[in-house]
């Protein structure tokens, strides 16, 4: 009896369509809230959102993030306000994709996106530098750094709205 039950299950599954996909030729869509490789975001005008505050690094339970900040000037501006990330690195071998960095970020600059192809031939390649993480500027927007008019981008965090 048990034997028949067992074979029945096997036969049932034999007749089903397989769920495996031919990765890497074929990629499966992920859920909207999937947490994959990070991206550093930009504002619509092309300025970087990251202000180099290191809060993501502080929140990271795996100590995967390394930020070094520097000061924006009107001659060389990367982000609004006074501060930007000169160095921004995530060690993907350390990252546990928990998303705490995303939660900690005051400017929504670091976002875990849908990319999940993460394999490396060299340990060093696992360190994603700012160049690799940063999204390209939106169509038509100039890449950073910018030369700006004094007084145009003097606030780091977009002026807050009353939360109510």
């Amino acid at each position, binding site marked *: 009896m048990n034997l028949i039950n067992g074979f029945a299950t096997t036969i049932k599954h034999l007749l089903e369509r397989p769920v495996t996909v031919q990765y890497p030729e074929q990629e499966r869509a992920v859920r909207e809230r999937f947490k994959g490789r990070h991206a550093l975001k930009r504002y619509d005008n092309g300025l970087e959102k990251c202000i180099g505050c290191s809060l993501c690094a502080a929140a990271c339970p795996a100590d995967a993030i390394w930020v070094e900040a520097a000061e924006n000037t009107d001659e060389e501006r990367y982000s609004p306000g006074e501060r930007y990330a000169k160095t921004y690195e995530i060690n993907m071998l350390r990252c546990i994709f928990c998303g705490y960095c995303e939660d900690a970020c005051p400017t929504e600059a670091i976002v875990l996106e849908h990319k999940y192809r993460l394999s490396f031939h060299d340990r060093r390649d696992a360190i994603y530098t700012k160049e690799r993480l940063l999204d390209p500027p939106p169509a038509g927007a100039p890449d950073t750094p910018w030369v700006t008019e004094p007084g145009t981008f003097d606030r780091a965090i977009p002026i807050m709205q009353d*939360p109510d």
Partner: protein
Amino acid sequence: MTKTATIMIDDQTYQVPDGINLVDAAKLHGITIPVFCYHPKMESVGMCRMCLVELGSISVNRDTGEPDLNDDGSPVVRWFPKLQTACTQTVRDGTVVRTSTAQVLEARDNILEFILTSHPLDCPICDKGGECPLQNLTMAYGPGRSNFIYDDKLHLDKHVPLGELIYLDRERCIQCARCTRFCDELVGDDVLAFHERGRSLQIVTISDPPFDTKFSGNTTDICPVGALTTADFRFGARPWELDEVPTICPHCPVGCNLSASTRIDRDFGGKKMIKRIMPRQNELVNEIWTCDKGRFGHHHSRAADRLQHPMMRQGGEWVKIDWATAYHQIASKLKKYADSAGFLAGPTLSNEDLWELRQLAELTGDTPRLGVWPAAMTGAGVVAQVGIGVNTRLQDVGPETAILVIASDLEEEAPIWWLQIKQAADRGAAVVVANARETKLDRVTHTVVHYDYGDAVAVLNSFAARARSRRKTSKALLDNRVDGYDDLAAGLKGTRVPFADAADVLLDAENVIVFAGAEGLTLDQHRELMQAAANLLIITGHVGRQNNGLVPVWPGANVQGALDIGFSPETTASLIDEPPAMWFIGGADPAADDSQAAHVLANAEFVVVGAQFMTATAAQADIILPRQSFAEREGTYTNGMRRVQRFYAAQGPVGDALPDWTIYAQIGARLKGPKPPVSAAAVMRAITQHVPRYAGMGYSSLAHVEAQFPDVGGDDLYYGGTAYANHGGLGVQWATDAEDDSARLVVRPAQIEKPEKSGDLCIVPVRLLYDRGPLFEPSDIMHQRVPEPYLELNSQDAAHLSIADGDRVMVTAGEIQIETAARVNGHAPEGVVLWPRRLAHGPAPALFSACSVQKIEE
């Protein structure tokens, strides 16, 4: 014993010193009364109202003097009808406070909400974020949300330079006036002020050049928000990412305790580097302050042009060699020259370096010649007798104490001592400033003695004579412990006393401290000056006690250590007069200071120089040894008050540079010396065994710390500021002979032979804090503060030569000829040209050498 008062805080009874500030009294017992504007080192102003408490006093029956009692037997308390600011109250018997009732908590909540109305919520990019009193107190006592409308926030300027060192963020300022009060009250420099009123109130700098004080960095520590930040650190890291390493300032004899905030950095090859320097609390040394040279002058440790490898001169070219070759070469040269080698130690060599250098020197002969550089000041024996009393706290000095500062421009030579003396004067201490010219310390006192250059010793002798004629001598000491008094008394007989008022100020005080420099004195004269100071202190009995004794204003961070370990400026003088065939120089740059020394070095047969940079002396070497800076290694310095203090390795290594002691021990090992010690601690152990005064100074005793007041750092940022708590050790001060009742003290007449001044105009070199010395010049951030080379002329002399303030002039003094700017500002005495050392590259002329000054017509 100070009187105590019994007070009640939150229904508990406590004993506290009578009459102290209520906030301090609570803090002494670990009770928090949050403050913003109050600071334990400053007078209270009651501006922020964060410290509101319920305040009352125990009602006392006027007839019986007994407290009135309630029916249940508890004392009757008369409460103020409204909350009171704790920071403006002093405690007395019967003071009662409640610090955490609902009413108080609500008041704190409201005050915080109010302070935050226009605060920008910049915490993520604010350098203070993470160690910010406003942040911490808001988390502890503040509202979760605000009733005010975000859109109504004022938006003010964010990047306002108050000078090139400090930036103001106007939005963040909470108008507590700590910064302005620090500058006005503690420092006495009129540099910051409030401008406008109400919501337009803002901090502005009112001096030209802006924020013109040597202590500006301290305002950023005590600012309770991130309104004031330093240009040096700006965005360097977040405070929680920094690794605090205790260190000691290598720039002057005060020996400020500092904390190097370090972090690894991509731009520094992924090694640890110093991101900023913060003061580290040592109430016996620098309290919680530091001068801007100590705070911003750390860049030399990772300057791009630091020497990285041992180098040897081969046919006029520098060739990189490895350490083994260097050791071997030097060892064989030392063997060859043996007795005709001279050793010279610079002012930033640590005690460990000095000890190993001496060990190395002793391998070459029984009586090696050990000199110290700069050889401007001497008096090791005098200091060992009458150095300042152990555990002196300048911050406690008040009306019972007189302080004499002689032959020193203290603000330029030892700024923190200047600051402490200035504050002592404010508390009522009598300050006597004796110098041949006006210095900034003159402002703090009415008792100023301006003598002629060359007369400093005579002035001190006259004070001693006055002590005798007014019978202000200490009989007990003279009868029992002093040798040579009869000679001295005979020598003082008939001495004229031109500055009797100043003498009396000193003689009438209960305690006397003498700070002695060497401005306008030759080495021989300085020896006499130190003796004259000792004479005065000994015969008046002002030795061997706290707040009494002599403090030499040495020309460097560890000159005291060099003298303690057996190096002497007299030997240096003899080395220059009778030069050895081989020179072994560690961390000194005599060629840049002294033309005679430069000349002698050029003619030497073999010169070995340990240096951080290609200095004028290194350029004359046959072998250059790259030495590590104070930042990369451990060691100890002995400050001008004989406190031996440890510093720790803060920064990653630079090139192949090594600590000096390792280098010396390695060379020694190739001269059949002992096996090199394995650590700086082991070297210090050897010192404790062989230098009697250092017997108790093993690394663990030097690292000992005790609780200090006021609390800084940690949970108490709101209180003392962001000076760092001391985790590296308070250091140990060695005791003088005067403190040992069985030791004899020696006095002798001090000679007042004046050196000859030559010509109508003669030169007096003076020291400036901000100069172009090799350890300071790499700090680009300070360049605006270092004046262009200039010299100062007396107005009479200037008039004769038709020179006006600011003219370009050509100065010729012997072989030295230099074009420079002239200042005619009333500081130089007639016939004297003041020559600030190390503003121009190239040696200063010798003291009192004749010079001619000619205006350059444009």
